[in-house]
């Protein structure tokens, strides 16, 4: 069974003999009582379970048991320490779906270093933008080390040219280093376990800092209270490791419970989403998560022959999070996959964010989505979520994201900071043992969201019914397109590279699209009247938006002075959006009006 080995990231297949790691039959599940992540791995290493990596055709490509991972990570930790690194030095890992990520992440855990995941997905034509992004992240936390799989070495070397790193290279180069003959220092509860770059601002990357005690508490809560994990559970994921749901949800949660996990590369999912279902079906996966768009993408690509091929009856927790939970595409997914025994009650709506490690709330298991239908007109008027019949003519639907995990306190406040009553929209504030200590070396950003008495301003808008949370808008300052968080300010700054685009003469925001998706819009002031010049301008911005953000943007050219400004002369994105919507011929693009009322002016 386990004779297939991967040695230091080189996947040596013994062809047909390679088998994925089994579910955890051997070890009693233990999800708390660990002093740090390294100790959790030491415990898991006594079992047979581990991580399995599938390739672009959905074939098992590499197997990494917890035992192998522990051994290899400890060896690698001694090699890293041999470089003279200090306790707490930062290690950037380009997070391709590859065993090397796990090895370096856990080598850092033993060595007392702080790992962080660097994005691995590169957009078409985006060479320069990608290199710049990697460089800014490495710079922002003053990284000592950076490592990239062979596929990304060229980009990494370009990014670190003339940077003063201790070492940057491939896993093989690190594996060739001598091992230092030193004992590991015990990693303390207050030592940082990792940094998590929020997928947003590319210009000013912010690294959420999470210490050992904080991550262990959230993992325990997810395992025991959120998902109620047991020995039969098996994780399947295509989520990238550089997103919190991929890293925490599908590397650290299985680890903390000694469970096996199966991975499909994110790009493979984007090309062949049905392989996700195949792996769940073949391996009897029980837990797998995605933002809403992943379910929608998968449903869109189903073929009639799939119905006989897949059996999804084992999938007991199909978590939905990371962006607003939209019940309509999820229902379509469940209906399409009913012939494959997909259980609609397996849907679990979740709410969370990297600033709280990963998870804040889970809807109850085995009940599916619970949808609250409210009067949209009332909501847009007073912010009250007034229940109505689903067939009401002006209805908005929100999904119950359940109660916050034990340990969290939450509170919904109005803009003056007063707590609002039940069914009243406001800003969601959180406090508890899984909240970050701040953004790494960024006092200003940390103070902007964390109060002295420990409340985190999530930036999200929602209401409560009893103790259950309903999210009506994610991150007031962020545009979320297909799971990707994009700061409007970043888009505006990038757009100004196009000749003719003026600083302060451009506003980016999102509006609800025709279907279920949000659309990004950019209003650009220009004096140009000539058609070909206007076309060049639009095309230039479109290209940059693709290169930097991988998204489509609706470009709206307007005359100078059109964009609304506040009394202090600052451009108002909020009013720009209102004005844009008014310019549109009805009923083209309509933003749900409650969001307009509840979102702050940026």
């Amino acid at each position, binding site marked *: 069974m386990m004779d297939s080995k991967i040695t230091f990231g080189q996947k040596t297949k013994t062809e047909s003999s390679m088998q994925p790691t089994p579910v955890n039959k051997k070890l009693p599940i233990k999800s708390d009582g660990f002093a740090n992540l390294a100790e959790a791995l030491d415990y898991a290493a006594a079992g047979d379970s581990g991580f399995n990596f599938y390739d672009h055709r959905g074939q098992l490509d590499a197997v990494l048991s917890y035992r192998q991972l522990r051994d290899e990570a400890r060896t690698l930790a001694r090699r890293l320490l041999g470089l003279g690194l200090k306790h707490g030095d930062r290690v950037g890992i380009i997070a391709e779906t590859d065993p090397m990520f796990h090895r370096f992440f856990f080598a850092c855990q033993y060595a007392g270093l702080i790992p962080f995941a660097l994005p691995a997905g*590169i957009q078409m034509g985006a060479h320069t933008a990608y290199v710049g992004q990697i460089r800014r992240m490495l710079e922002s936390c003053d990284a000592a080390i950076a490592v990239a799989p062979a596929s990304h070495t060229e980009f990494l070397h370009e990014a670190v040219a003339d940077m003063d790193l201790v070492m940057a290279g491939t896993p093989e180069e690190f594996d060739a280093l001598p091992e230092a003959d030193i004992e590991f220092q015990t990693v303390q509860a207050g030592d940082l376990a990792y940094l998590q770059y929020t997928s947003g601002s590319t210009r000013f990357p912010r690294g959420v800092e999470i210490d050992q005690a904080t991550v262990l508490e959230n993992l325990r809560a997810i395992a025991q209270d959120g998902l109620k994990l047991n020995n039969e559970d098996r994780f399947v994921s295509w989520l990238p490791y550089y997103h919190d749901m991929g890293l925490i949800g599908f590397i650290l949660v299985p680890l903390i419970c000694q469970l096996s996990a199966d991975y499909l590369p994110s*790009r493979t999912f984007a090309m062949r989403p049905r392989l996700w279902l195949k792996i769940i079906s073949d391996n009897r996966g029980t837990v797998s998560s995605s933002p809403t768009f992943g379910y929608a993408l998968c449903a869109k690509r189903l073929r009639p022959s799939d119905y006989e091929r897949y059996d999804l009856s084992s999938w007991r927790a199909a978590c939905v999070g990371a962006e607003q939970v939209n019940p309509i595409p999820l229902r379509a997914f469940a209906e399409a996959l009913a012939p494959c025994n997909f259980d609609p009650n397996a849907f679990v709506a979740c709410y969370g964010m990297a600033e709280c490690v990963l998870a804040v709330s889970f809807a109850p298991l085995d009940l599916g989505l619970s949808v609250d239908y409210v009067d949209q007109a009332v909501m847009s008027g007073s912010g009250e979520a007034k229940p109505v019949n689903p067939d009401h003519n002006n209805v908005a639907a929100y999904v119950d994201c359940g109660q916050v995990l034990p340990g969290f306190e939450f509170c919904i406040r109005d803009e003056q900071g007063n707590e609002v009553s039940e069914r009243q929209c406001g800003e969601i504030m959180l406090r508890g043992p899984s909240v970050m200590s701040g953004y790494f070396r960024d006092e200003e950003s940390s103070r902007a969201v964390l109060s002295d008495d420990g409340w985190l301003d999530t930036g999200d808008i929602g209401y409560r019914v009893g103790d259950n949370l309903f999210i009506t808008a994610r991150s007031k300052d962020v545009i979320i397109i297909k799971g990707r968080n994009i700061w409007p300010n970043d888009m505006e700054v990038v757009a100004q590279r196009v000749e003719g685009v003026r600083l302060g003469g451009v506003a980016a925001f999102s509006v609800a699209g025709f279907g279920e998706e949000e659309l990004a819009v950019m209003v650009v002031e220009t004096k140009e009247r000539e058609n070909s010049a206007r076309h060049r301008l639009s095309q230039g911005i479109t290209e940059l938006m693709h290169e930097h953000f991988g*998204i489509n943007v609706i470009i709206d050219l307007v005359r100078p002075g059109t964009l609304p400004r506040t009394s202090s002369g600052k451009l108002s994105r909020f009013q720009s959006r209102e004005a844009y919507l008014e310019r549109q011929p009805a009923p083209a693009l309509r933003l749900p009006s409650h969001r307009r009322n509840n979102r702050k002016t940026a």
Partner: protein
Amino acid sequence: MNTRIHEIEQRIKLLLASYLESSNHPELEAHGEITGETNLVSDFTMDSFQVMEFMMELEEAFDVMIDMNSLSNTHTVHDLAVIVDKDLSG
């Protein structure tokens, strides 16, 4: 131009037109003829997931495996033809 690259390019043009048509991209008509210099992302509003979907169609049509990282320097239909040609030769 190398005949094989030219043939690949012709085929990519047809595949792209049929992809855009099947996914109801409104720009197809407005854009007119797809040429070797057609820019895959800025001439059509294809987002990153649609780009990946089209790559899958190319992989299946040519029976190649496209090196995704090489796409970072790819902009046009011709650039793409060069990548496919390279894989067919390798």
